[in-house]
């Protein structure tokens, strides 16, 4: 705050709206102050949104394959809706619960209208809402970070249409929710009005993101830098303190929650936040990402299988921006997203870290933004750099020809690949075996209420709706070995189980789970849907038939 006043001089007069000292670095493109009243922005954003929603929404229930994690989160959201606590098995602080509490709220109205719709395939529709909000936020953030309109639109298109995004954003992952909150935090932090409470809100959104998916914690430094760059030096200390305080206070509500439940520290006979964190921190590593054959390598390949352009191009864009920090205004404007990408990439490169398949979701919007920003940088360099008013016409024309050729080449490379991705996404039926198996279990088993089945999480809710007893009747297969309460209810081990729905996930994990392994070993397939690795078998356990 200036504590000096100009001396009483005779010159400058008149009643005046007091100007704020300019803080915008020279040469930076100023985004319009009100995007919502800018017609071209609204049109571009609206058209892109429709395209993204069509590509992501069409055939959403049938592609990609239902994932175990989706089932987990949705089932826990169902437990919240039903008032059964934070999970239908003991909540053990695996993740902060805010993510599926939000899912519960999102699916609340459809589930009220039709309880049977509370299954993974159907409820994927709510993810469209999340995708839509995130995509719009990517555009808005791009504009607020001073990207030209076309580049912000490019970022939104990349984010929404990359085959990798299409696959991952369709699934009910907490990461998608967390990404939305993180984007909101960045957007608020980059608020052009530099309002104290916008920064405060950014802190709150960031905390919500972390409580939705704890891995968002690593993004916070990049968010802080964005807020720093976008605050005015006179009000910065209040704005940033506000943001940090808001974030910390909301973040602390989680340990407080554990404390109030008496589950903060480990002790006998109860789960604890401490144990939960310890578990997540000590998860066995999946190897070095660049070492062929390791688990992480496999995960990387699975991402690159869907799309190489966004992950690799985005990473290159981030490195380009960080390297040209000194010279490029775009690079400085996009410091936040570029840093986010760098941090996430560095974490993925840990020699023996645990790399889950959804890890890349949190990087997607930032990869898209830096890719778009990098493109804008290149375009600027080609079209404007060292260009004077007196430049010869021929040279100017050459600049435009070069830009056109580059754009055409990029389109020729990207469009066919992404078109393929989109075509697969809207036409493939990947979940027919699951649906058939679930139908079989619902219609062919005589007495569902008195039958005990091991299933994977994705099918669990289907069977609950079919009349099986949630928790101890229809059982998440790994709880049979890992949850003491469930294990106790199976005193005779596999003999107490009637059916196993052996999906690929169940078969894969069974080798480490004695009860599940035995149940599979002592059972015969009575129905098989699909073929090869992806088949779903319904196996009846040999002793079943009245001995229970």
């Amino acid at each position: 705050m200036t504590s000096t006043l100009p001396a009483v001089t005779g010159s400058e007069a008149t009643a005046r709206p007091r100007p704020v000292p300019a803080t915008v670095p020279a040469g930076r493109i100023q985004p319009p102050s009100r995007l919502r009243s800018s017609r071209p922005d609204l049109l571009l954003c609206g058209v892109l949104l429709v395209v993204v929603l069509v590509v992501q929404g069409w055939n959403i229930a049938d592609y990609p394959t239902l994932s175990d994690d989706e089932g987990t989160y949705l089932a826990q959201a169902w437990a919240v809706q039903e008032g059964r606590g934070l999970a239908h098995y003991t909540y053990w602080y695996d993740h902060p619960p805010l993510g599926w509490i939000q899912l519960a709220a999102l699916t609340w109205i459809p589930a009220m209208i039709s309880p049977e719709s509370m299954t993974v395939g159907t409820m994927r529709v709510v993810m469209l809402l999340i995708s839509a909000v995130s995509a719009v936020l990517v555009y808005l953030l791009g504009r607020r970070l001073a990207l030209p309109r076309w580049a912000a639109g490019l970022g939104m298109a990349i984010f929404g249409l990359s085959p990798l995004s299409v696959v991952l954003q369709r699934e009910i992952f907490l990461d998608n929710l967390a990404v939305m909150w993180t984007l909101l935090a960045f957007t608020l932090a980059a608020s052009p009005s530099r309002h104290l409470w916008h920064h405060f809100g950014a802190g709150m959104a960031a905390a919500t993101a972390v409580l939705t998916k704890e891995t968002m914690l690593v993004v916070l430094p990049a968010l802080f830098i964005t807020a720093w760059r976008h605050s005015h030096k006179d009000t910065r200390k209040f704005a940033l303190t506000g943001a940090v305080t808001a974030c910390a206070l909301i973040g602390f509500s989680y340990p407080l929650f554990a404390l109030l439940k008496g589950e903060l520290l480990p002790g006998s006979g109860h789960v604890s936040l401490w144990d939960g964190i310890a578990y997540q921190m000590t998860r066995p590593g999946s190897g070095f990402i660049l070492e062929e054959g390791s688990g992480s390598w496999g995960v990387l390949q699975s991402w690159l299988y869907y799309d190489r352009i966004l992950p690799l191009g985005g990473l290159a864009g981030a490195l380009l921006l960080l390297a040209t920090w000194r010279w490029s205004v775009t690079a400085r404007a996009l410091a936040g997203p570029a840093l986010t990408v760098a941090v996430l990439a560095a974490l993925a490169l840990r020699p023996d870290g645990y790399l889950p398949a959804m890890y890349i979701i949190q990087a997607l919007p930032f990869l898209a933004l830096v890719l778009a920003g990098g493109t804008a940088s290149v375009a600027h360099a080609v079209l404007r750099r060292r260009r004077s008013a007196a430049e010869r016409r021929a040279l100017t024309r050459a600049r435009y020809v070069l830009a056109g050729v580059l754009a055409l080449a990029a389109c020729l490379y990207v469009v066919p690949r992404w078109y393929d991705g989109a075509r697969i996404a809207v036409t493939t039926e990947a979940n027919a075996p699951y649906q058939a198996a679930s139908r079989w279990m619902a219609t062919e088993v005589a007495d569902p209420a008195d039958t005990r089945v091991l299933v994977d999480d994705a099918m669990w809710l289907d069977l609950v709706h079919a009349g099986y007893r949630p928790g101890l009747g229809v059982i998440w297969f790994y709880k049979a070995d890992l949850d003491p309460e469930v294990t106790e209810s199976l005193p005779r081990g596999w003999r107490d189980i009637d059916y196993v729905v052996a999906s690929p996930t169940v078969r894969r994990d069974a080798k480490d789970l004695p009860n599940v392994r035995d149940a599979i070993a002592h059972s015969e397939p009575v129905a098989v849907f699909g073929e090869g690795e992806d088949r779903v078998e319904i196996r009846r356990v040999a002793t079943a038939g009245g001995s229970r």
Partner: protein
Amino acid sequence: MAAFTLWWQMHAWRTPEVLASTRFSSPDGGEHLSFSLLLPARHEQAVLDHTIQRLLESSHTDFEIIVIVGHDDPGTTAVAEAAAARDPRVRVVVDTHAKKNKPKAMNTALPHCRGDVVGVFDAEDQVHPELLAHVDHAFRSTGADVVQGGVQLINFHSSWYSLRNCLEYFFWFRSRLHLHAQKGFIPLGGNTVFVRTGVLREADGWDPDCLAEDCDLGVRLSSVGKRVVVAYDSDMVTREETPGSLMSLLRQRTRWNQGFLQVYRKKDWKQLPTLGQRMLARYTLMTPFLQAFTGLIIPLNVAVALFLDVPVSVAFLTFLPAVTALVTFVFEVVGLHDFGKQYGLRVRFVHYLKLIVGGPFYQVLLAGAAVRAVWREQRGRNDWELTTHVGAHIDATDGTRDATAAPDASDRTREDVPA
């Protein structure tokens, strides 16, 4: 409720634009208004002369100083007469009321004012020489009826409560008052306040029976739609000191609270045109009591959550007030840093520590003052309890008063600015 206070307290720092607008705009050099500066002084012989000298150093060319002394106070009168003899711009008015207080004294002087604008200062104020020029410009450029300048307690290092007291002033004058000015409802401060003489006479001066006559004046003027402008500049503020002892702070605070209560009961604020303004008025005048209430309820809430066996959701709710209080705390720490920065004062780590540790105790003090005010108002006791000042805000190098301030500090009492 704590959230509202926080929101308003942080008003000035919302955006850089708002912050810039809270400052005085720099004067254009033209000086067209004349000032009558009222200087009520009671048993202030030690500091009065210094204050008058400083006021006379003002760069403005057209002002008079009217010192108001009591007929039963020969010491102060002598100092005032001596100053008047030295400089024709100083005049002395004697207040002969049997029972004396500040509004009565100022009403006595009002008919003698010749200036276009009446300004009020206290006898121990340190006024910046450029202030009048800035105020002159503010009147002319904004067409205001009232200009409120900043007042700042400076001696934050004196004690734990003076630290908090200073910060209260900082937030009030730096930020909150601007919000009030913008919303069109403002309780004025007790000094560094300037009113057009015509407007003041129209309003019949100050309410002689009100314990917070300045707050009352502000409420009455804004209720009839007069335009109030607030300007704050750390250079231009009038520097003051905190009460010398905890007891006198308590008394001072009791008086303000009681004054606020009286203003609330006078119901002038009900003439405010919009509901929002009336709600703001109601809320502002009740603030001391709500503040006291929350100060006591928060620890209780946390205790309930931690020690009683209540459902987790209920326990969570009981933490909400604590959260807003915590945010306020954090902003106070940042405010203290900003305060030190702006006034070029060295704020040490121990001061931050004092600020935080002292917080709950200060709450207890505020709660005590609130209860005491209600009790006194109920009993119909509304005489003035005076506040003692020792001059801690004036530099030790400032020899003119330092030597004299200490010996008679105990018997010199004066009234203070409600904030």
